[in-house]
């Protein structure tokens, strides 16, 4: 049996991945793809988005008993009534969990019934942003506290839009060679590029503010595991930014002269970016619960 303090980051990783996938794919369908292409991508990514919604709900359910086990430092506390009721009724985390539970139930309902892409985007976006209600964003008081939570929510939404929408990009690229969708797919790529610049810039800017707010310094003290892993995350994000720039400014212009080769290169670049993004999520799930000092 794994220890509670190992199960907690795993549950966080499941939740973060699921919420970002549901949010990013919904965002691509609702805002980036023109209508017909959006419907086609929605149909082919239906399994992925339903799986993401289910995983978000399951990991939300699991979080409360795992947190109780971490607090009691044993799995017996996971179902201990007094710990669970104190956690739920008397802590800020418990209230945040109820918000998250309500949102993940609504998202699951929206995914099972026919709902508009906008409704799915709004619910998954709120679910992702609700992560800012717990954790290091809540360490401050007063105006600085509000600023910290808002900045963290914006960071989650911008970074989630960047990483999550990459999941829908291969489906869009494949349709560039399909005469029925070619025009719409080109429009989608143009919009993706503009929105992508904004999302990447916002994710990096809010990430810097978050670092400064949590640490009060630059992460240069490598005797702190938190700071070491934060630097590893920054390196992965730098890699993702580099791949995004190569995709946009080297491979996309190649589409005029060598479209077949360019599409494969953009697709591979997207997969590489997703792989680095998975590493970022794993790091965040782990060091987000460590002591920054």
């Amino acid at each position: 049996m794994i220890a509670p303090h190992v199960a907690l980051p795993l549950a966080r990783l499941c939740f973060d991945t699921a919420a970002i996938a549901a949010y990013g794919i919904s965002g691509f369908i609702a805002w980036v793809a023109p209508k017909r292409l959006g419907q086609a991508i929605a149909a082919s990514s239906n399994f992925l988005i339903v799986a993401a919604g289910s995983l978000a709900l399951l990991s939300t359910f699991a979080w409360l008993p795992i947190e109780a086990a971490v607090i009691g430092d044993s799995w017996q506390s996971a179902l201990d009534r007094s710990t669970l009721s104190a956690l739920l009724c008397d802590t800020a985390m418990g209230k945040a969990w109820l918000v998250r539970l309500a949102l993940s139930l609504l998202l699951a309902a929206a995914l099972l019934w026919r709902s508009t892409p906008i409704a799915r985007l709004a619910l998954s976006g709120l679910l992702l942003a609700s992560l800012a209600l717990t954790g290091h964003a809540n360490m401050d008081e007063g105006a600085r506290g509000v600023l910290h939570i808002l900045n963290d929510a914006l960071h989650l939404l911008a970074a989630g839009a960047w990483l999550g929408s990459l999941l829908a990009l291969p489906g869009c690229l494949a349709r560039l060679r399909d005469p029925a969708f070619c025009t719409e797919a080109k429009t989608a790529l143009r919009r993706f590029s503009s929105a992508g610049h904004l999302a990447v810039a916002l994710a990096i800017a809010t990430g810097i503010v978050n670092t400064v707010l949590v640490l009060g310094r630059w992460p240069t003290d490598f005797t702190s595991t938190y700071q070491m892993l934060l630097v590893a995350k920054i390196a992965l994000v730098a890699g993702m930014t580099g791949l995004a720039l190569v995709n946009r400014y080297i491979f996309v212009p190649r589409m005029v002269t060598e479209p077949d080769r360019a599409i494969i290169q953009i697709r591979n670049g997207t997969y590489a970016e997703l792989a680095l993004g998975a590493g970022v999520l794993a790091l965040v799930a782990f060091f987000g619960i460590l002591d920054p000092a």
Partner: protein
Amino acid sequence: MKTTTCTLALLSCLLFDGSAWAHAHLRAEAPAADGTVGTAPAALSLTFSEGLEIKLSGATLKGSDGKAVSTGAPSLSPSDDKLMMVPITGQLGAGIYTVQWHALAKDGHTTHGTYQFTVGH
């Protein structure tokens, strides 16, 4: 220009004040760690770096024989959510005592630790 400088100065104060740390660290305690008190204290007071969730924070007190000294329910100071007070309801004779504390910070992170103090000479 002046406004920009002021804003920057204000922002840097807000961002780099360095007083806030996530996770509740024990900053001060009475009786003091490794200290000696002449008379048995009526309560333990522990001051942390962060606000606490009191329902899931607390401390136990043990004598050098390993026997637990009974304590009342921990409470927060009404004016300071970083100050936890644990009333001591059991008898405290002369000797060395160990305090084992656990804290759940408002931001949801747990910390724990121990320290000792001596009652008597």
